[in-house]
């Protein structure tokens, strides 16, 4: 089992008076080498789930098991080693604007390289060949020595993907990895992620807004709505009705009585 969640609950309480339940009693098992897409409306808890799997979010209750280890029972050193085996591709890639792409991608191995090697690499890039190869597969080879703030949104997303591929994690997590790419690139990038995961028998979990892409590229699809798993099955078995139920939006579909639709009163901020 690559991922095992049992009765996991996450509540966001920051800034808001009434805590928002992001994940409610989630039970989930994903075997090693599986490729899974997570779909669902905005605010369903997709990002929270991925952050949970990346050990960036601690659950309020329940147990999380990743790569046969319980991250929150581990000490600092072992947790750091476990994290080096997990790669998260974030929706807004957190790359420093002034950093060169070659350095930003090399940072993927920060958890594997010794401290000395990492610091040396800051002064002179040590593995230009390897990074050039990874960037080439994302059609970004010509940008290797450019600064990150010179890249477009889609290029930045691909640079972040290159970093995670360069990390060679056993568990690849991606939060909306193709949201800023054109359809052809999105298609190509998802195929690449899938191919990469298959070749190294890594587990791949991707959240997507685009239903077609999710159904076409991933054998297993999980529908998330309001912090709960609505369905979890093979892509081929998912019916039209289930998708409608997943994305049903009462607020937008309700007859418009007032000209201005209101947010619920208890959602402060």
């Amino acid at each position, binding site marked *: 089992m690559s991922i095992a969640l049992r009765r996991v609950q996450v509540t966001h309480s920051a800034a808001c008076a009434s805590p928002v339940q992001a994940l409610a009693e989630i039970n989930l098992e994903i075997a090693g080498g599986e490729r899974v897409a997570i779909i669902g409306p905005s605010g369903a808890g997709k990002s929270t789930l991925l952050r949970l799997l990346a050990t960036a979010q601690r659950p309020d209750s329940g147990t999380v098991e990743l790569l046969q280890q319980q991250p929150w029972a581990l000490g600092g050193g072992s947790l750091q080693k476990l994290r080096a085996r997990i790669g998260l591709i974030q929706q807004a890639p957190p790359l420093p604007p002034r950093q060169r792409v070659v350095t930003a991608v090399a940072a993927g191995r*920060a958890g594997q390289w010794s401290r000395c090697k990492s610091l040396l690499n800051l002064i002179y890039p040590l593995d230009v060949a390897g990074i050039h190869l990874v960037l080439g597969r994302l059609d970004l080879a010509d940008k290797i020595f450019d600064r990150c703030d010179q890249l477009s949104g889609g290029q930045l997303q691909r640079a972040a993907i290159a970093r995670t591929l360069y990390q060679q994690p056993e568990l690849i997590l991606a939060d909306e990895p193709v949201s800023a790419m054109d359809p052809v690139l999105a298609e190509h990038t998802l195929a690449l992620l899938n191919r990469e995961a298959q070749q190294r028998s890594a587990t791949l979990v991707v959240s997507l807004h685009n239903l077609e892409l999710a159904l076409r590229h991933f054998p297993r699809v999980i529908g998330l709505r309001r912090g709960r798993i609505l369905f979890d099955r093979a892509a081929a078995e998912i019916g039209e009705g289930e998708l409608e139920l997943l994305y049903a939006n009462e607020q937008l579909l309700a007859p418009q009585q007032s000209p201005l639709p209101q947010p619920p009163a208890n959602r402060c901020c």
Partner: protein
Amino acid sequence: MKRVPQTPRPPLRAAGILILLALMVAVVAAIRFLALDFSGVMEPVSLQQMREYFVQFLQPDLTASHLQAIGNAALETLGMSAIGTLLAAVFGVCLSLPAAGYFGRVAQHCARGLLNILRAIPELVWAALMVLAAGLGPNAGTLALALHTTGVLGRLFAETLENTPTGPADALRGSGGSRITAFCYGTLPTLWPQWLAYTLYRWENNIRMSSVLGFVGAGGLGQMLYIHLSLFQQAQAASVILTMLLLVFAVDSLSLWLRQRYLAR
């Protein structure tokens, strides 16, 4: 389930208005308290006196021996301010990390307290103390500049640290990087241009400052200026002042060029 429609109100900015009012009251009170009165400056007698004094500065002493002395003093001033600022930058970096809360709350309070003390004591006072401790000359000036500037730069560096987005460093921690690696790869690229800009700016300030420090005997152009002014040698003092101007202009354009060349955007 239906919700009662209700137009959202923008949050009231009472605090902002209050602060603005308080500031205005403070400005008026300060003018009253200091009894500021600029009318005396414009009276014919004082204008006449000022003109006579300034005319004496219009014939700067440009003899070779004097220029050589000025050159030596200028080098001393430059060296004092450069070494002082460099030392301050190094100590500032060392203190800004704890001051930004990188090593826990206790260390944070200690570092902040130390920076406040260093900053609260002006360069001139530091210089006077250092002249007692290290004797007359550039030693004292360098130390005085380093101490005060450490307080200033440490505070500025810490603030930049706190305002730097943590996303990149968090991401690196998330993929198993150590704290040092995450800092160097995630935080430093955004940080160092700002740190460098602050340091250059303080260097510029310190060149001006180091000329004043000479007045308490801390070496450089300032000491020369002080001696000539005390002896009413306006011609010699004028050339010292000209040199100071040139120096400040030169450093100003150098730091501008550096910032545009390397720190743009």
